[in-house]
């Protein structure tokens, strides 16, 4: 099996380049992360990539595999064919090889205040929810912040400093839906303007690539409906 990997070390390389590796005896169930680990262990210890849990929970190993953003640890080789091309997540500054600088992504995430905003005095007991209210958070809270969605979004490529991006907007939707949150007006006011929310043109790359099968595009649509109700 041939694996072509994006390489760039800013300390020694003038420009990025693709480097080919060959691996034998690879079964179709083998995950791409395992291929990378084998290459690093057996052929080239300078190859750099992020990894942690290895089972699609931590979101560390998001990368562009055969043209689509995926988590290497839960992408079986059998889905990809005989030739595999691995690049870093698109649109982000490359630190080294497959490692990108996600500062911009985390800045946008922090900007939507991904925590409960409450104005009432803190209660003696937990803030309770009915099962129905809790159900409204399904499909919103499961995001692992792997950045596969935001870095596949053309609007985020064009305006990463101004557009919040699908991952951050999914979190905004999660707290707008939360029955315990009291910051609805504050959150919607913050999202108005030409860039933060409305650069989303429903391209839906985010939904296509989400490794947790979430639907940021639908969540953004719900925020836009809430925004409309808010101004009427």
């Amino acid at each position: 099996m041939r694996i072509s990997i994006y390489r760039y070390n800013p300390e020694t390389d003038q420009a990025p380049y693709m480097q080919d590796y060959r691996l034998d005896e690879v079964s179709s169930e083998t995950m791409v992360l395992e291929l990378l680990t084998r290459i690093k262990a057996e052929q080239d210890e300078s190859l750099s990539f992020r990894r942690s849990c290895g089972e699609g929970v931590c979101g560390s190993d998001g990368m562009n595999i055969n043209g689509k953003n995926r988590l290497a640890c839960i992408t079986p080789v059998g889905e990809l064919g005989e030739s595999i091309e691995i690049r870093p997540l698109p649109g982000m500054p490359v630190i080294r090889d497959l490692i990108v600088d996600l500062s911009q992504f985390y800045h946008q995430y922090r900007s939507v205040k991904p925590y409960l905003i409450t104005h009432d005095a803190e209660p003696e007991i937990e803030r309770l929810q009915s099962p129905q209210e809790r159900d409204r958070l399904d499909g919103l809270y499961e995001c692992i912040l792997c950045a596969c969605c935001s870095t596949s979004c053309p609007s985020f490529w064009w305006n990463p400093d101004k557009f919040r991006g699908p991952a951050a907007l999914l979190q905004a939707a999660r707290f707008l839906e939360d029955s315990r949150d009291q910051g609805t007006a504050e959150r919607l006011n913050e999202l108005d303007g030409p860039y933060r929310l409305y650069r989303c043109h429903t391209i839906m790359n985010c939904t296509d690539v989400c490794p947790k099968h979430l639907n940021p595009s639908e969540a953004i649509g719900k925020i836009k409906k809430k925004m409309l109700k808010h101004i009427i």
Partner: protein
Amino acid sequence: MTLRAGGVRPWVLQRLSALYMALFLLLAVPAAWLAEPLDFSTWHAMFTRPWFNVATTLFCLALLGHAWVGGRDILLDYVHPPGLRFALLGLLGLFLLSMLVWLLGILLPLMGGVA
């Protein structure tokens, strides 16, 4: 209205204008198609009817509003130097405004059967 302009309002304008244009085309195209005979005098008569004239004028306004939001979106996405963006937005606005003046110059005199 507590929100500042620039986000939700253009978004609403784009959707409302699209809705109106779709409805207008669904009604006006068959009406024009069915008009017999399909010649200048028949068309002229159609546009002299106040309801059709007003509906067509509203269609033109919706089209230009829709085009403004769409063109503005493209410039916000792709053109980042502020000076160039401002100049292109100005050109787009002037172009659409001249289209509006031209269209109103054609449609409004027909309202009462003049021209």
